[in-house]
């Protein structure tokens, strides 16, 4: 080892020792001043933060020995001489605690979570039990939430929309759980950018696109580049370019709300679209052309404090063309009977849309 390498090696060891000291201090009675000093230490040199992370990861791994410790000593300590030849039996599988299943890759950590999100159903929304990744959430009171992702991609979320982000070194996975979001994808072909909508995968190829989930209906609109949409369950796959959209509906519910021009229910369908209309939600307007009423109402319900229910399949299948201003949703609702043969009535905090005169008398 040259003197230089020697110094570097020593340096690294000292960092690890300092990190170990900090970790021990912070686990016990760290004062505010200690915490501030620790942060300054971390920020002083990226190698410090790195050493701290490495110490943490050792600490985590060492926790796996819990099943092999009795009375403060490893059960295998008495037969140290044979340790090279035989592997101690792995500890019994630890009892699973009820805990959300998270991917823990450090790269999945997202620094961008909307602060406004905290006011709205915080825990339910931030911790989806079934998928790894961190959630970006738009709050009820915010029409548009901008979030920057770790790779420089951007997401704009509509009110009450939830996107989960799960990045690793070789892929960028996201999931649209609810609502509507517009993605502007940073170019990085070796690291696919894929948005999951249940079992449908929307893969971006140097792209900006919008996804909207409304009830059982989902719509992907491409504003730049190309997307590939692939559905796991049946292998259905389509491609769409800028100015096109892909729509599909959940098959389980297809019978009650079929696309009027659809023959094979639930297929991924590609059609041309007016992109500016689709993106108008970012200015507080939802614009529709020939949209099933139930899908409009699913959007409506994200923007309104007063949930709306539709009674009757015929009403669900009505087609709406027009604009819904997201800050005056109630007025829009009262206008509906002028457009369609329906009645709108209040039921507690909610509203019901039903075929006209269905309430006899």
């Amino acid at each position, binding site marked *: 080892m040259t003197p230089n390498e020697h110094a570097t090696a020593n340096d690294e060891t000292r960092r690890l020792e300092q990190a170990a000291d900090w970790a021990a201090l912070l686990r016990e009675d760290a004062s505010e001043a200690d915490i501030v000093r620790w942060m300054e230490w971390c920020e002083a040199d990226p190698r410090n933060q790195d050493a701290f992370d*490495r110490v943490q990861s050792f600490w985590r791994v060492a926790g796996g020995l819990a099943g092999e410790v009795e009375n403060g000593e490893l059960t295998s300590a008495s037969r140290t001489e044979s340790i090279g030849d035989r592997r101690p039996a792995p500890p019994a599988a630890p009892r699973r605690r009820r805990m959300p299943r998270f991917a823990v890759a450090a790269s999945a950590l997202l620094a961008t979570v909307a602060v406004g999100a905290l006011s709205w159903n915080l825990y339910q929304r931030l911790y989806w039990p079934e998928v790894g990744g961190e959630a970006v959430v738009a709050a009820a009171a915010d029409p548009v939430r901008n979030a920057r992702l770790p790779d420089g991609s951007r997401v704009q979320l509509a009110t009450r929309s939830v996107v989960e982000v799960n990045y690793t070194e070789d892929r960028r996975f996201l999931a649209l759980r609810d609502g509507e979001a517009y993605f502007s994808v940073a170019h990085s072909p070796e690291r696919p950018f894929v948005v999951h909508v249940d079992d449908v995968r929307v893969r971006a190829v140097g792209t900006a696109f919008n996804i909207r989930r409304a009830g059982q209906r989902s719509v992907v609109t491409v504003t730049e580049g190309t997307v590939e949409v692939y559905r796991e369950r049946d292998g259905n796959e389509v491609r769409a370019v800028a100015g096109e959209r892909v729509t599909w509906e959940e098959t389980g519910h297809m019978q009650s709300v079929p696309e009027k021009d659809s023959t094979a229910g639930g297929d991924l369908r590609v059609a041309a679209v007016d992109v500016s209309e689709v993106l108008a939600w970012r200015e507080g307007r939802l614009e529709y052309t020939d949209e099933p009423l139930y899908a409009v109402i699913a959007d409506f319900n994200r923007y309104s404090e007063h949930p709306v229910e539709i009674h009757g399949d015929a009403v669900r299948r009505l087609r709406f063309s027009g604009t819904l201003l997201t800050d005056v949703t109630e007025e829009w609702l009262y206008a509906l009977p002028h457009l369609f043969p329906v009645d709108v009535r209040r039921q507690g905090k909610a509203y019901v849309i039903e075929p006209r005169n269905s309430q006899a008398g």
Partner: protein
Amino acid sequence: MTDERQSPEQAPRTHLRALSELFEQHNRMLVSFLVNRLGNEAEAKEVAQEAYVRMLQLHKPGAVSFLRAYLFRTAANIAVDRLRRRTRAEHAEPVYQSEDLFDSNSPDRELIAREQLDAVRRALLELPERYRRAFLLSRIEGMRTADICKRLGLKASQTRLYLRRVTAYCRLRMDGLTEEEAKPRVFP
């Protein structure tokens, strides 16, 4: 339509902006800090969120330096509460659940985790017993430095030295250094 905004939204905009910046700049460090405390990442993130909620309810804006320290202090307090609620039995379990390690899309993950655990076990067995015991009491039994001192009849400075050296040594061994390479680095 009535606009039923939640109370945190009524906090002054400047305060919200300051918190938002705080969050962006320090979230990683805060989670790192809490993982160290709590031993698992999911709970660390929960506590981080809870701390932010409490910060949002704090209606007086303050200097960012104050907010930062306050945020970590708040988070630390929540973490302490949670640790108190944990029973002795829960503590004896590996606090980092192996599912944290194994829940990954990569099938190699489990193998890597096993190999790391083997490396740590081997490294610990290469160390003097008093070092190993001090570490296991801290890590597995969840004992505080003062209690470890009592149990093993050590001075506080010795216990700290042992924990520091065990950690550095095991980490270097995990990183692939041999016993012969790692020992002189940590035990001068």
